[in-house]
């Protein structure tokens, strides 16, 4: 719609670009430059659009503040706690954390990419419905699925009790897979996190030029070749972005691993901080965690530095799906149903069972208020975070400033920090800002301002920005990356201002990544707990808070009601998301 207006004044982008190569060789790598704060270096850092870049830098710096607050603990001396940890639990938590990352990484990459490829490229029974259903586990908070499965599969749960009852077995008479193990917790996290990869991979596959795949097909390449040699490398930035999100969230998870008794880096941070009361050592552990994440990001980016991919056609051509039949068709159906059944249908059934057993006593009008708070907060946060992500990603595209790129990368690490840790970093930053405002107001006007930021919804929105900028920025950067720079240049030579380029070229092309980012943030805020819990204003409850209060008090049956409502709201928004994808993919045909 948006660029139909553009058509009158500019030639169709694809007519210009049709002859372009799929892969544009990157310019020779520039010599590494460290930003030094000399006037010249400053000008270089700000690029040729100083105001835009300066604003983007300021935004990123704001988001980085809480992370820096956590990192600042690195420079304090800890009183031997780290040494104690190194001698006792550190080897175990390192092994567990690495194991978790490997298992979840392989799991989400395989399920996410595999299912996205199948539903995008092939037609098989229920493939269209499955394309939508595969997103559903996104609506399921990880700790809820963990509680639900444990309740069902644990030694004292209904399944094992029934098995023991049938055969008259005792505790050492049989073997049953232990759900509360590293494998179990990895499975739980994989089941709720694969949609990140699935969604971004599917968007990328849909955005890819079908002509390339058709050419490969006419040259005699089979489905596997087309996938491995063309689609996968082209979708790699998106898959990497999804994988990074999933792994960061797995690293930050506390609720599930703690309940399963699997000690990871995150549980160690909490033990050190809460149990031993050593916030310095806890901050140092968190810093180590961040360094680890930074290393992963750097390695991934270095690995794909040499190639930059753009799609060659801006026209949304519907991919001609290949119709499967017989055995392959049913195998595909089964493969794509399994994640949905395990990640959504089964846990929802368990939750419904729990709800019927004894749901929340407060279910009723009170829940409407909770649902509204949750919905409004998530909606507003989605807007704010997506808009910020778009602005920063756009500034980066225009200016190609290394300083901005580094700062943006750094600002997204908030996603990998355990929720309460980053929440405290946010509290510290807000508190410092408030006290600065207060003392300067006292000095200047002799009036105390009190707390202007702390304990407000504004503070909460800032917290969501810090936590979820990664979600929005990752997808949008990948989205911008698929638009060739030459398209901007063409538009500019045809007389568009940079704002017009944004409005008339980028926005229409970014519609899908934008909506994806907004809804991912929406669903994430829906489920978000630690920051909401501690930063919220007085008497402000959300559904996730209600669920946490009951679940943390081991009233799982009662907690199931709120969890089901969260899932229902998530379901609706995922439905909207799927509708958007469908809408945009049809629009061009």
């Amino acid at each position: 719609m948006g660029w139909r207006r553009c058509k009158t004044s500019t030639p169709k982008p694809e007519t210009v670009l049709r002859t372009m190569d799929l892969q544009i060789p990157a310019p020779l790598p520039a010599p590494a430059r460290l930003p030094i704060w000399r006037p010249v270096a400053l000008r270089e850092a700000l690029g040729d659009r100083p105001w835009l870049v300066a604003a983007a830098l300021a935004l990123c710096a704001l988001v980085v503040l809480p992370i820096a607050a956590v990192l600042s603990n690195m420079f304090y001396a800890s009183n031997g706690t780290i040494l104690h940890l190194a001698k006792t639990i550190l080897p175990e938590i390192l092994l567990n954390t690495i194991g978790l990352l490997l298992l979840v990484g392989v799991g989400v990459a395989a399920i996410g990419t595999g299912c996205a490829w199948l539903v995008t490229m092939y037609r098989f029974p229920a493939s269209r419905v499955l394309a939508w259903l595969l997103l559903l586990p996104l609506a399921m908070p990880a700790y809820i699925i963990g509680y639900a499965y444990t309740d069902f599969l644990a030694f004292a749960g209904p399944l094992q009790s029934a098995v023991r009852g049938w055969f008259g077995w005792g505790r050492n008479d049989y073997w049953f897979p232990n759900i509360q193990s590293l494998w179990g917790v990895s499975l739980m996290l994989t089941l709720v996190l694969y949609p990140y990869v699935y969604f971004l991979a599917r968007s990328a596959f849909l955005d890819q030029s079908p002509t390339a795949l058709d050419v490969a097909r006419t040259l005699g390449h089979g489905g596997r070749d087309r996938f491995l040699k063309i689609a996968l490398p082209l979708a790699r930035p998106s898959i990497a972005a999804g994988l990074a999100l999933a792994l960061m969230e797995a690293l930050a998870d506390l609720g599930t691993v703690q309940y399963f008794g699997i000690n990871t880096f995150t549980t160690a941070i909490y033990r050190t901080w809460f149990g031993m009361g050593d916030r310095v050592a806890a901050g140092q552990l968190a810093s180590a965690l961040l360094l680890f994440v930074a290393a992963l990001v750097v390695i991934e980016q270095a690995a794909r530095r040499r190639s930059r991919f753009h799609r060659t056609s801006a026209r949304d051509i519907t991919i001609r799906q290949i119709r499967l039949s017989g055995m392959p068709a049913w195998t595909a159906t089964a493969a794509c149903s399994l994640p949905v059944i395990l990640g959504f249908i089964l846990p929802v059934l368990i939750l419904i069972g729990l709800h019927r057993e004894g749901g929340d006593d407060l279910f009723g009008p009170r829940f409407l208020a909770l649902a509204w708070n949750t919905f409004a907060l998530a909606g507003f946060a989605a807007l704010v975070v997506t808009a910020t992500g778009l602005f920063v990603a756009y500034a980066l595209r225009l200016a190609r400033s290394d300083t901005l790129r580094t700062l943006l990368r750094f600002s997204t690490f908030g996603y990998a920090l355990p929720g309460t840790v980053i929440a405290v970093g946010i509290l510290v930053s807000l508190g410092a800002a408030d006290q600065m405002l207060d003392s300067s107001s006292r000095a200047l006007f002799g009036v105390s301002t009190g707390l202007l930021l702390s304990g407000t919804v504004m503070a909460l929105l800032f917290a969501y920005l810090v936590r979820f900028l990664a979600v929005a920025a990752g997808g949008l950067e990948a989205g911008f990356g698929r638009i060739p720079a030459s398209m901007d240049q063409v538009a500019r030579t045809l007389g568009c201002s940079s704002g017009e380029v944004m409005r008339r070229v980028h926005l229409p092309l970014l519609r899908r990544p934008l909506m994806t980012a907004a809804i991912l943030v929406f669903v994430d805020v829906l489920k978000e707990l630690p920051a909401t819990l501690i930063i919220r204003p007085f008497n402000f409850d959300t559904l996730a808070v209600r669920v946490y209060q009951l679940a943390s008090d081991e009233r799982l049956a009662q907690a199931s009601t709120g969890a089901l409502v969260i899932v229902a709201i998530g379901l609706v928004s995922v439905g909207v998301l799927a509708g958007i994808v469908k809408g945009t993919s049809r629009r061009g045909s």
Partner: protein
Amino acid sequence: MPKFILNRRALLGGTAGTIASLAAPPVLRAQEKVVNLYSSRHYDTDERLYADFAIETGIKVNRVEAQPDALLERMKAEGANSPADVFISVDAGRLERAREMGLLQPLNSTAINGTVPASLRDPEGHWFGFSSRARVIMYNKDKVAAADIATYEDLADPKWKGRVLTRSSSHTYTQSLVGSILAALGEAKTEAWCRGLVANFARAPKGGDTDQIRGVAAGEGDVCLANTYYLGNMIRKNAAQDASVIAKIGVVFPNQAGRGTHVNIAGGGIAASSKNREHARRFLEYLVTPGAQTYFAQGNDEFPVVAGAPLPKTIAALGSFKIDSLNAAIFAKNNGEALKIMDRAGWK
């Protein structure tokens, strides 16, 4: 399509309105009498308690409920301008930490000092307990006789090899229990006890107290450590699933012949930055009145701290018991050391 846009706009407008109305801090808006709680308690019965208090005194209770350590960080970050009047925690360790961080001020109320036993109060009056939870040994009646086990120390006896269930050492209930044992036995003996206990585990520690109780009933282990409060909760909820669990579980109050059973408290104190000190005092004193004590016992299965207040119906049958008279401030201070001992002993 246009209709959808209209709806979307209306929706966003509404959202913005809600957010804007919430953006102003309530403390600035309110001219009414209030007391602001930063609390890590979040029981539904508490809301009725707060409502009762508001009716009785005309003081409205505002609350932020979150994890205790995060609340302390928030109070610290907000500094002298913090709206917090009262800090409430369900663990003595956090109350003591609040005092150490300078976030509480002494209360010294005769109403409280006259009714709450000295072992459940900070000697300097910064905080006090208004209800307590006993950490007891629960056993499977089919497999264990009550006489088989009498003390926490007994759990390390090799005869329990492969039969003991506990939750993780990360949890504050575990830390405060081991903190109390540390005060009674000293470091070396406590570590030996932990090692013995770890050797007796039926499985790696996991889950919550309720999971330990269900595990014992189902035969995953034969004995476990748990708070009475969770059993009371199960009895009151009376779910069909738990009927057989409740029937199978027996309770031993440990160390009755010696120092007594370890209890932790739910307690509170006045924030150092409080602007409504008088309201805060009235609120805290209200918590030790018979009406409030009944809420804790009957609504939430906690033990009252005031002598003569009725015991929770669900667990009254267990009878009264001797409480470890160690001051809560001491086991609270021992938390960190206790955790290090458990780390060394391999208690995950």
